[in-house]
């Protein structure tokens, strides 16, 4: 439903951040972008979302281009309740839909805290609120920029499973930027390893989703996916 072809971009005429980057994303698919800092991962998300315009290449949509964004920082409005924060996308579009907001809050298990303000919540709860806000926009594509990087490992595992459940349930596509090999291997249908503004290689973990989360993380498919990514990243370093 989304194809990006030969994207090129540079900030302030410096060395190009993206140079001939391409990707495709299908509905219900999780694609991770993995690579060293400054390889252009976040720039891809900004171009796909329309916040930035590519200098070359183009982004093609084969469905409604409605995207939602989740950042590493929950980026909640501190002066608004969780419910008001989650309702932000519908409020801005002028179509306030209470049932959709309630549904999004329920999906991340925050219904009981909807009247609280962000400062009263834990880091994990705030991130769930941030995901709920994205869900309430009812996106066909979810763009996530290292969303769980600031969480501790137990919370990150929980958020990973929550995300996989939501994808299975709602069928949106996810473009996921991460620094973590393990997170990429666990979440993704495909991992794009990036180098100097383009895709250096693709890894397909193909985990057996019928296993428990820990069994998946201990499976040989998981280990060889991590191995393949490590090899690609080592080649990049040299």
């Amino acid at each position, binding site marked *: 439903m989304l194809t990006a072809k030969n994207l090129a971009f540079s900030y302030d005429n410096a060395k190009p951040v993206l140079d001939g980057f391409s990707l495709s994303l299908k509905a219900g698919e999780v694609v991770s972008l993995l690579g060293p800092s400054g390889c252009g991962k976040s720039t891809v998300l900004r171009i796909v*979302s329309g*916040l930035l315009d590519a200098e070359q290449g183009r982004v093609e949509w084969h469905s409604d281009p409605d995207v939602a964004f989740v950042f590493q*920082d929950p*980026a909640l409005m*501190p*002066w608004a*309740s969780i419910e008001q924060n989650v309702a932000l996308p519908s409020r*801005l579009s002028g179509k306030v839909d209470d049932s959709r907001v309630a549904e999004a809050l329920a999906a991340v298990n925050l219904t009981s805290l909807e009247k609280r303000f962000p*400062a009263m919540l834990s880091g994990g709860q705030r991130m769930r609120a941030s995901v709920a806000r994205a869900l309430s*926009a009812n996106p066909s594509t979810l763009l996530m920029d290292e969303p769980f990087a600031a969480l501790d490992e137990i919370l990150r595992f929980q958020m990973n499973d929550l995300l996989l459940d939501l994808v299975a349930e709602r069928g949106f596509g996810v473009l996921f930027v991460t620094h973590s090999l393990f997170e990429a291997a666990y979440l993704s249908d495909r991992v794009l390893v990036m180098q100097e503004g383009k895709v250096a290689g693709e890894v397909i973990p193909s985990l057996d989703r019928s296993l428990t989360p820990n069994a998946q993380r201990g499976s040989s498919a998981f280990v060889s996916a991590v191995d393949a990514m490590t090899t690609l990243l080592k080649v990049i370093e040299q």
Partner: protein
Amino acid sequence: MKRFLLPIAAFTALLLFWQYYVTTNDVPKFVLPSPSLIWLAIIDNMPLWLDASLSTLSVTIKALSAAIISGVLLALAFSLSRTFEATIYPFAIILQVTPVVAIAPLVIIWVGIDNVERAQVIIAWIVAFFPILANMSAGLKSVDANLSDLFTLYGATRLQRFRLLLWPTALPYLLASLKVSGGLALIGGVVAEFVAGSGTATGLAWRIIEAGNRLQIEKMFAGLFMLAIIGMLVFYSFALLEYYVLKRFGQENT
């Protein structure tokens, strides 16, 4: 409790020492009157003090209102156009760094000969306006970049961006500046009255000058005391406003 009791205890101790020192050393009352004498000067002339306080407070409030409106509007204009900000901001700084005592005589001559209050309000506005402009500008610039991106992504109109993002972000900054500007407006009003001298002035500053000219030092102290009360009233009103507004928005910790 400590926050109230300790300063009150210290103040009481100071008054007692003052009274004791002045009495035992026979200090003449035209050099340093005793606290009890000052208290009598307040009580005996209550209608006068209330009248003068009301006049000073009215100048302060008018100047502060003008400062809030002009400071907020100018900060908004700055946030809309960097060019406009670069052009105008230096003038605001010039107005701020030039001592108000030096500007006051001019303002008095231009608009204050027949109506001192008008000049007082303008002078007080000049000093009160800059902290509001500076803080409001800083507040509007401190908008969370990610949130700003989300507003763009979800198609916010300019009005929505202002009402739902810029204004609430800047509000704590504005409230903090009011505590400063409230005190400055009072100072500006007093300075104006000192510069104007007699004429039609009716505020506390004029009562202080008048008492000084008659060598009624205890009345000077009484006037100072009333000024201090008004200053604290203004400061704590805004501190309270800040506390309740921020509490209502759930961000008293930020």
